[in-house]
């Protein structure tokens, strides 16, 4: 049979039949009686809440389950015609690539070129053939300039691309991706999804992508599979998925779909382009408009967003609101960090004030200086010039809450009255006798925050400033909603809360003010509605759909659309 005929008769990229899997010593099955087929060249989005079985399914498809993790398995898995349960990950490596959430955990070499070359070496390819494959995959992923760099000098987005290159270099038929954008800024995240779509279209690679931020990739997908409790709860087209999630599990819905459902518009859109097309259709009677100002007139709200809420500091200056005590004051702050051979200015003359009760999202691309700013405020980094003060004290929760947990009982981490007071603040006073490892991800994060707060409160009064660095990595929307509630509680009790985050939708949900950093300077500082509308990358999906100044959340957008239709 010719090569072309072989390809035409190719088996499915992934075929799963009656799969049931239980991890060792687990009381229940992680996957129950699951059947799924993915055709060659198909782009499938895997949706579902945390612990619904998405990661386990991906690991089963690449052979890590059960070969690496052990456990009990029933049913069959075929990857490009190979029996995955029989073959194991090593033999499947030529047919399937796998990209995990944290690229740090899947890099094994010192330099980028060596990392990409490793799978080819393992396969025994000739050196010249390896060199060509590396060159081609580097060009495809736009990383030729990184080939001679060491992996520890790369940004998160660059490292994720390198890991993707190592997964793609053997030209697999199927690539599995487990929340690959969760640690990336909006720019890098969007670029990665765009890159995946291009690879899918041009190389014909089948993709199975697990993701929480569905708004990022729903428009690119051919099909959506939603999981619940280890089983498939939905399998169909993206538009049908939106209708299903709206009726069954609204936490899986996208912001633009929520916008439309709140405004009573049908059908629900799969992305920004689709939403705009629906709004500009004749059926919408001109609600869409063509320019922001035209839309405002059509909506009957020409004033909307034109006068965004005044900045809190301006209101205080004008005596409209009583002055709140400052909890962070930075003046001309310069910070240098070593990047190997040379020093780099990470913060360059930052001026910033934070008051008690404020909820601030600190945003910017990877490397903009967000983490360095909060770490400098907490005293972990010394500035080279300027001043930074936190008069009311400060608690900082860094990116990995597990770093704070070193004992085997919550009460041992937080002994005494001060410890119990801190546990009460985060709502974990009932868990004093529990092993931290038995807590859920969200509870572990709250426990780590309590550890940072303990002893920094006067009675029940919180420290002046509480900072959280990238707290939503890998979180589903239900957990983000819980975190939003906690932040609001902390702010109501008088703490200024600063959250460094890439997640624009989360920022729109919790923050009143956004500080946007770029290359170590404050590029923009203002109310959330002003900063997160009018841009492209640092804008919510609703802002990108409506392009109305000041409108960033589905609720605000739905109100505007309802009013526009009523007019």
């Amino acid at each position: 049979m010719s090569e072309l005929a072989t390809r035409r008769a190719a088996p499915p990229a992934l075929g799963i039949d009656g799969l049931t899997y239980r991890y060792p010593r687990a009381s229940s099955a992680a996957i129950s009686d699951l059947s799924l087929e993915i055709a060659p060249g198909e782009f499938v989005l895997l949706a579902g809440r945390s612990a619904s079985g998405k990661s386990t399914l991906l690991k089963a498809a690449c052979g890590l389950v059960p070969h690496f993790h052990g456990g009990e398995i029933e049913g069959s898995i075929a990857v490009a015609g190979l029996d995955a349960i029989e073959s194991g990950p090593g033999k499947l490596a030529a047919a399937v690539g796998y990209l995990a959430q944290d690229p740090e955990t899947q890099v094994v070499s010192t330099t980028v070129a060596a990392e990409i070359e490793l799978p080819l070496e393992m396969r025994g390819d000739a050196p010249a053939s390896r060199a060509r494959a590396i060159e081609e995959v580097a060009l495809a992923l736009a990383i030729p300039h990184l080939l001679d760099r060491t992996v520890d000098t790369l940004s998160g987005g660059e490292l994720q691309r390198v890991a993707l290159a190592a997964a793609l270099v053997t030209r697999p038929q199927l690539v599995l991706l487990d929340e690959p954008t969760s640690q990336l800024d909006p720019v890098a995240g969007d670029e990665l999804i765009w890159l995946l779509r291009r690879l899918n279209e041009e190389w014909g690679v089948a993709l199975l992508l697990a993701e929480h931020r569905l708004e990022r990739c729903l428009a690119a997908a051919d099909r959506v599979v939603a999981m619940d409790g280890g089983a498939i709860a939905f399998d169909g087209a993206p538009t049908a998925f939106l209708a299903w999630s709206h009726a069954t599990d609204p936490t899986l819905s996208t912001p633009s779909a929520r916008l439309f459902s709140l405004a009573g518009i049908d059908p629900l859109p799969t992305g920004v382009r689709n939403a705009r097309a629906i709004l500009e259709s004749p059926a919408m009677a001109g609600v869409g408009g063509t320019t922001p100002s035209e839309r405002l007139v059509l909506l009957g709200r020409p004033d909307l967003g034109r006068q965004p809420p005044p900045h809190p500091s301006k209101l205080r200056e004008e005596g409209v609101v009583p002055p709140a005590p400052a909890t962070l004051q930075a003046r001309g702050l310069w910070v240098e960090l070593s990047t190997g051979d040379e020093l780099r200015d990470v913060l360059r003359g930052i001026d910033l004030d934070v008051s008690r009760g404020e909820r601030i999202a600190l945003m910017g691309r990877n490397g903009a200086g967000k983490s360095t700013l909060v770490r400098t405020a907490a005293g972990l980094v010394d500035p080279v010039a300027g001043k930074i003060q936190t008069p009311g004290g400060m608690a900082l929760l860094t990116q990995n809450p597990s770093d704070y947990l070193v004992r085997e009982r919550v009460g041992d981490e937080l002994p005494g009255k001060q410890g119990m007071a801190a546990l009460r603040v985060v709502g974990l006073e009932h868990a004093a006798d529990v092993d931290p490892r038995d807590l859920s991800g969200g509870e572990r994060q709250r426990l780590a925050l309590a550890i940072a707060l303990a002893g920094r409160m006067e009675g029940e009064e919180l420290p002046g400033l509480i900072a959280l660095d990238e707290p939503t990595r890998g979180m589903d929307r239900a957990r983000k909603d819980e975190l939003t509630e906690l932040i609001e509680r902390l702010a109501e009790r008088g703490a200024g809360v600063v959250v460094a985050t890439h997640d624009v939708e989360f920022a729109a949900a919790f923050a009143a003010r956004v500080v946007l950093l770029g290359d170590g300077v404050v590029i923009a500082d203002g109310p959330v509605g002003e900063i997160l509308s009018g841009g492209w990358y640092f804008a919510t999906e609703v802002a990108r759909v409506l392009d109305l100044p000041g409108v960033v959340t589905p609720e605000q957008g739905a109100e505007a659309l309802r009013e526009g239709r009523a007019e």
Partner: protein
Amino acid sequence: MRSAFAYTPRPRPLQVASPGAAVAYLGALAAVAVAYSSPPVLLAVGAAAALAGTLAGAGRAVRAALRLAVPIAIAIVVVNALVVNRGETVLARLGDWPLLGQVDVTAEALAEGAVLGLRALVVMIAFAVYASCVDPDRVLRALRPLAGRSALTATLVSRLVPVAAADAARLRDAARLRGPGAAAVGRAPLARRLLAGSLDRAVDVAATLELRGYGLEASGGNGRPRRVARHPVARRARARRRDPRAGDPRRRRSRFDGRFYAVAAAVALAAVAGGLLGAGDFHAYPTIHLGVDGATLALIAVVLLSGLAPLRRLPRRRRALAAAPPPSRLRGPAAAPALEARRV
């Protein structure tokens, strides 16, 4: 912050040279330090290694090695002076010490300790330059045909050590950020946590290796699978393996290889010839004797000159350009006015 000893690619002769050439060059210097005890020769080797590191852009690694090695060298001098009672020039009688007995500090024991300390310092400088300038992946790839699994293990260790250092720094930061009301964290719980984290990392790396096809190598052990499956994917892979082009164009020999091999050979020849001619005559006991003859001076000259091997000679036009720093190099608070324009 990256370790000063971490490999950093730079467009300098020592970095672009093949691993064999770089190892031969730095190894020749280290071999002279091990073979000779003469302080002037050791100082020359140390100066040559430091000069080579500086010319290769690894000045930070050299300084870090000095910071690390000087206390070690001093400790060697002190210990040697206390435990060795040989030598005729007694500088101090410290009486009877438990375990050590009568302790007499002699000038000869101090001199011998200084030579041992100097040797350790010189070897550490050479190793620091090696670690900072020679790509470990290329070294280990060169070793893979000889010992595939050992080379792969070494690759993983060379990757996991800096990762563990970064984890330790993160845990220390988290410990500093604990509120005063939380239980204090001593070194033992932190060490346990670091160990647990390292095991998790090791499991992740093992899984990644499986996914990269490590199972295929398990049968061959030298990077070549012993069995080829009949699956179409494997057939295509086999077709690619039959590629007639033998060499990897990315890894063709550097134009500097010859220079480093020649310098290594010159240093080795000078060391052998010097040994035959009695160069580097030094002994500490019973009295200190240091002979500096013509052969010793010649050996010192060769060794010192070898430190210039990583010198990069720029073309005349590029030299003129390199003399003026680009405006983008403006750093620090002095750049503030230029940045004002960017603010909103």
